[in-house]
Each structure stands twice: as structure tokens, then as C-alpha cells.
């Protein structure tokens, strides 16, 4: 089961529903959609559970949300913001 976790050593600030994350070198802006996923990335919540919660919160089809969450997690991983 995939339980995405934040990379160590990050700092972040939440501003009006968006996040800015600092990895010690660069700042990353997470728009409201990415911020919604990021707020559930805690190393304990499974990817399936993230999809379920967001699907319920936004009243969107689960398949579509799953695709979006998968793409966002991949982008966060590429940016070095996820552990592992």
C-alpha cells in the first residue's frame, strides 16, 4: 500500500489555500489542487484513502480523482518533495 510521505528537511507555509514549500534550495508553489493533495501527504494516509477523501470532498468521480492524485504525487516526487 502506497503511503506517500513528505521528504525530510522541508519547510512550508500555507497561504490562502496554496502552499509554498522550501527544500533548502528552491521554493515550490503548490496551487489549490496540489495543496489539497499535499495536505493529506503525511506518511500514514494511503494513496487510496487520499483519493477517497478528495473524491468525497469535491464530489468528483473517483477514477478521475485517482488519475489526478497519481499525476500530482508523481510531480511532487519528481520535484523531490516526497520521501523514498
Amino acid at each position: 500500500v502506497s503511503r506517500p510521505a513528505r521528504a525530510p528537511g522541508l519547510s512550508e507555509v500555507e497561504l490562502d489555500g496554496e502552499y509554498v514549500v522550501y527544500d533548502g534550495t528552491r521554493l515550490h508553489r503548490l496551487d489549490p489542487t496540489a495543496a489539497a493533495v499535499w495536505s493529506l501527504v503525511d506518511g500514514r494516509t494511503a494513496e487510496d484513502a487520499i483519493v477517497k477523501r478528495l473524491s468525497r470532498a469535491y464530489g468528483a468521480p473517483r477514477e478521475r480523482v485517482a488519475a489526478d492524485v497519481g499525476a500530482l504525487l508523481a510531480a511532487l516526487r519528481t520535484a523531490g518533495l516526497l520521501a523514498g
Partner: protein
Amino acid sequence: VTGPTHHFAALDFTFSLDGPSALVDPLAHALTDLSVPGPSGAPYAIDESGDLTLAGMAVDDTGSPDLLTRLVRDVDYRASRLSEGVMAVHAGAVVAPGGGALLLPADSGSGKTTLTTALVSRGLGYLSDEFAAIDVRTLDLRPYPKPISLKEGSYALFPALAPYLDDGPISHVPASRVRPGAVVRHPCAAAYIAFPHRAPGERARLTPMSRAETVVELARHGSLAVRGDRVLEVLGGFVRRCDAYRLVFDDLDEVTDLLVELSAP
């Protein structure tokens, strides 16, 4: 003839300037808005041949076209390094009649200094240009009234400043010569941030930015590495108090009107 020692303060960096009157007086005049009664710390000196030293060490900057530019750049560098608790942002900073500051962060060549000069001449107060100083404790902008460094291409826009402009590619004009009483001597909270971008033929317009977008853009113009982990705390706190915009413009009068209107009480 050696004249009196002049004393100055650039944020927390204090310095003196000594040397032959013929060489020192024009520099001291350009730095007049930074004058303090003294005593001051770092001793700059100019010798008869025009060489600039600080505590006996040569101040080298082969990229500077003249002595004053070399001195201004060296002072900027030391003010940035020696002022504890300051985050430097490459920006102009002016103060609206209502007391809120307007920050204009931009790359070199974007028209930032021209815009700052125009706003000061239109009645806004002067905090700084090129180097805006955020106090990381209070999140206010600290005054650093260094001379405004106008480039040759802007000279014709300010005919009233002709007596203070050199023949060279850059002139350093005290803000108090742009408008008497323009210099603001106390820290100010920022109320607006506008990121100017000159676009030929475009009408002046402001496009609102989100605060997260503003933090990222502001960091691009700031001394990010200096503040380490506190950078988000400082920038986040700073932008929470401001409305921020992208500013596209071409005509100087039009954009000045727009910003004067934006910052009106």
C-alpha cells in the same frame, strides 16, 4: 586639499569618507541622504590619483564605470552583509501618502529605478531603490535612502534633474534632490507589491497575484540563501500584509498615475 571627514550610515553599516575635497565632495553630495553626524565605522579613503580604499584595502570593482558607482556598490554589498536581521530584495520602495509602502521588485533593466524616481517626484516618500530591506523581526521595510542610480536612457524623462545628472552612463541622485522632503526616515509596513515589467506598446495594467505566487516571485529577487529556514516565515508574513500585482507598462506617466491611484488613501 583634504576636506572634512564625512560620515554615513547604510542600514547597520556605518562608514566615513576622506580624501581630497575635489574628489570627495561630489561623492559626499550624492550620498547626502545617508549622512549621519558620526562617528562611523568603516573608513573609506580616496587618494590623489582617485583610488578608493577601505581601511587601507583597495576597493576593486572593474565593472564600475566611475568612482561613485564603485563606492555605491561596495556600500550596498557591505550593508547587505553587515545588517543583521535584514532580508535584501532587489526592489524600489516608496511610501504612499497613507503611510503604506509600495515595493517594486524587478530585475535590472525593467524600469524599476525610473518608476521609483517618477513616483518620488509625484509625492510618494522614498525608502530605497535597488535594495529594499525587510526587517525579518518586524517585517517592516527599513529606510535605506541611497542615491537613486539613474541610467542614461532615463535622463530625458526627468529634465528637472539635469543639474544633478552626469555625462556618463549612470548618475547617482539623492532622492532629496528629486523632491525635497522625499526621504522617509522610519520603517514602514508594506501595503502593496507590484512586479514591474516594461512591455513596449502595452497599456499600464495591474494583474492580482496569489500570495503563494508572490512569495515565490519575491524570493527570486531576494537574498534567499542568507535567511535559510526562516525564509518562508519572513516572506509569508511579509506578503500576508500586502496586495500583490504583476505590473505591465510602457508609458511612464500612465503607470505613475496608476500606482499613485492604487496607493492613494
